[in-house]
């Protein structure tokens, strides 16, 4: 069989850690090859080696049977290897075309020939059905389109092998479907794809073969047709994992959060929440389903005081908390697991201990007469990292040094520990592996069972369906439908999220 890309016995070390230990990955022409592993297993590292960003200590790379040395991304490009990074590599103030041609610009008398480039980009976009506006600025387009720009970038450079690092983590269900279609059309043209994802279902759905790595070591490569989700999961974590979250029916009590006719603008003064109504009661998890950009972020920011609302009211425990400061909101008993953990959730240069008191540092016992008591702070932190299984060398370690999953566990520990009456969890499991997801889901349900109200915002329909006791669908800044998870399915939700009315969505069923 012909392999387009072979990575043989690759070893890559970082100071104090072997990220890739003797891993072998062989990709056939025209296949979608999944790469599976826990957080920190070494997937991104392996791909960065293939893309020329890192140099391996040991091992051989072959492209089309020829041994090659990929010393930098230019070489990778020349070899027909393109990468769509987990975190987009796009220059925001530039246009789509400028981003795509960056580094290999067509010129006329030394001047960039933007006209021709735009034409070429548009053609390419049309050919693969990518629906990208060549002249738009990156900062003005949606996440989904940004990703398609990334794909275009690789195609523009004539990539034959495309690497996708967690491409679906940031996408809506509709966008995911579209992406899969795009992937199929790419393989149909003879291109090969390496796909990194934590979503086993996606692997089952789209890929032909799958290589599993664990803690830097290659475990196995399987034909997807011959395996199942359970096997993949246990290979990946090294133990059995349960998927369905066990939970008892909810026993909702009094209303904790009541939002009426809320209107919020975003930072660019565009109306994002346009008359939202929502109720969350004690002892239930309300999931907000919706496509990214329909006002979810602004809704959460308005509740938590990070963004002023234009009109409408937010009542919490029968008190009006509209437009209170974040501190007042927090003090009145709202916990918030923010969507962007690096930006909002943590001060990465503080120690884990310091991060654990981010909202409470000024209160007793952590502070007295405005003077901090570090002994109390670190004692508290010790307790939390134990309880929430945060894997860190110590509480004195900088938060920056932790993996994404462990950072998230730290945040969740901190928020739940304050035992808020309302816990807002925005994308709580984004980019995490199944082990971590399982842990976090359990914790959220536990909170509910303690009689707390939980507001869950997620783009993952699985998560919404799994956890919620009630689902609110958010579309165009409004709560367009409320459904019970047991009375609906992904299909109907997807339609509702795309703006169909409930009746129509029901009809199509």
């Amino acid at each position, binding site marked *: 069989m012909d392999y387009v890309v072979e990575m043989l016995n690759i070893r890559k070390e970082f100071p104090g850690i072997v990220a890739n230990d003797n891993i072998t990955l062989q990709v056939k022409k025209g296949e979608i090859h999944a790469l599976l592993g826990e957080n920190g297993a070494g997937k991104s590292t392996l791909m960065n080696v293939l893309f020329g960003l890192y140099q391996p200590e040991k091992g051989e790379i072959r492209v089309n049977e020829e041994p090659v040395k990929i010393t930098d991304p230019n070489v990778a490009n020349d070899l027909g290897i393109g990468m769509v*990074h987990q975190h987009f590599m796009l220059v925001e103030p*530039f246009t789509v075309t400028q981003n795509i041609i960056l580094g290999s610009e067509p010129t006329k008398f030394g001047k960039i020939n933007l006209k021709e480039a735009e034409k070429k980009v548009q053609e390419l976009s049309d050919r693969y059905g990518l629906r990208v506006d060549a002249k738009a600025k990156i900062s003005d387009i949606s996440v989904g389109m940004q990703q398609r720009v990334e794909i275009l970038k690789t195609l523009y450079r004539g990539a034959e092998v495309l690497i996708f690092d967690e491409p679906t983590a940031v996408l809506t269900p509709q966008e995911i479907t579209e992406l899969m279609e795009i992937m199929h059309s790419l393989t149909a043209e003879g291109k090969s794809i390496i796909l990194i994802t934590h979503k086993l279902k996606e692997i089952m759905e789209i890929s032909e073969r799958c290589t599993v790595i664990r803690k830097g070591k290659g475990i196995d490569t399987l034909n997807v047709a011959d395996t199942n989700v359970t096997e993949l999961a246990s290979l990946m974590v090294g133990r059995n994992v349960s998927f369905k979250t066990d939970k008892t029916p909810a026993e909702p009590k009094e209303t904790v959060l009541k939002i009426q006719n809320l209107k919020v603008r975003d930072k660019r003064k565009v109306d994002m929440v346009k008359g939202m109504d929502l109720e969350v009661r004690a002892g239930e998890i309300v999931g907000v389903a919706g496509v990214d950009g329909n006002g979810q972020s602004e809704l959460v920011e308005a509740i938590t005081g990070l963004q002023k609302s234009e009109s409408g009211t937010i009542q919490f425990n029968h008190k009006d908390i509209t437009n209170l400061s974040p501190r007042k909101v927090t003090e009145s008993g709202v916990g918030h697991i923010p969507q962007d953990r690096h930006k909002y959730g943590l001060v990465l240069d503080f120690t884990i201990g310091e991060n654990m008191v981010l909202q409470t540092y000024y209160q007793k016992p952590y502070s007295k007469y405005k003077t901090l008591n570090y002994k109390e702070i670190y004692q508290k932190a010790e307790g939390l990292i134990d309880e929430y299984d945060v894997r860190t060398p110590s509480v004195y370690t900088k938060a920056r040094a932790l993996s994404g999953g462990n950072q998230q566990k730290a945040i969740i520990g901190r928020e739940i520990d304050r035992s808020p009456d309302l816990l807002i969890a925005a994308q709580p499991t984004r980019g995490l592996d199944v082990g971590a997801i399982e842990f976090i889901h359990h914790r959220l349900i536990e909170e509910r069972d303690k009689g707390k109200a939980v507001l869950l915002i997620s783009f993952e329909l699985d998560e919404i369906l799994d956890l919620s006791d009630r689902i609110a669908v958010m579309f165009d800044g409004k709560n367009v439908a409320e459904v019970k998870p047991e009375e609906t399915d992904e299909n109907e939700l997807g339609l509702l999220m795309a703006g169909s009315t409930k009746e129509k969505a029901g009809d199509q069923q």
Partner: protein
Amino acid sequence: MGFVDLLQSIIPPALFFSAPLIFTALGGVFSERSGVINIGLEGLMVMGAFVGIVFNLTFADVFGSWTPWVSIIAAAIVSAIFSLIHAVAAVSFRADQVVSGVAINFLALGLGVFLTKQWYDRGQTDMVSQQFFTRDFSLLGDIPIIGEIFFQGIYLTSYLAIVLAFVAWYVLYKTPFGLRLRSVGEHPMAADTNGINVYKMRYVAVILSGALGGLGGSVFALTIALNFSHATIVGQGFMSLAAVIFGKWHPLGAMGAALFFGFAQSLSVISGGVPVLEDVPQVFLLIAPYVLTILALAGFIGRAEAPRANGEPYIKGTR
């Protein structure tokens, strides 16, 4: 004084005062657009002034009336080499760029005066004999009013500065080099994954800023001060830095800001003859450029966004 007379006595001096600032500010634009903060512009100007004067004194006999031109080229080259220190610190050694820039300022002045003492045995050099001279532009100068204001008694270097600003704009916004340079300052990792050598781009940008700072310093020395001492360049580099930011990191903006500073400075000196300004205490006119800049920043262009990766060392393989 009539209005035209007034303009004629304000604008040509404003132009000669602005020219060194424009050169240097363009250097700042290149450097900061690539993501390297350059507080060291002052030092680069000092180095330029020093080299320009020393070269001029040494080779005046060789190059005759071409000496000032050759001198500013020499100054540009030496300052470019000197700026390598900042490049190495900021790009390769991941130094705090602001601090490294401050060090550049100390170093240039220290070295300049130290070497002056070594070579001339005293704290300042002689005056140069081959300085820049103003000239009237024969055709353009004959245009009524405009010709008088803009084309009589003007330094060629002032026009060079303005032309260079347009060249810089073209290079930054119309050429692959410019696109790459800006991408490195906004999102170096994206540039890296596109096969652009981030380090090389930043080195080039800093060296360019050295060359342009050297030009600015030497033009200042060879039009205004005519010798070198510890007090030759006092704050012009910081003014240029202000022009960079005031001009929103855009070459033409920086030029506009530098011209504005020159205009304000010129006005503050000429005020004696201006009816309204005659009675204003001089101190208000002296601080006017600075206060106006503050007000302008506070009022109108507060939203100016620096290149996103400005000041951040790029470390391959992290985000």
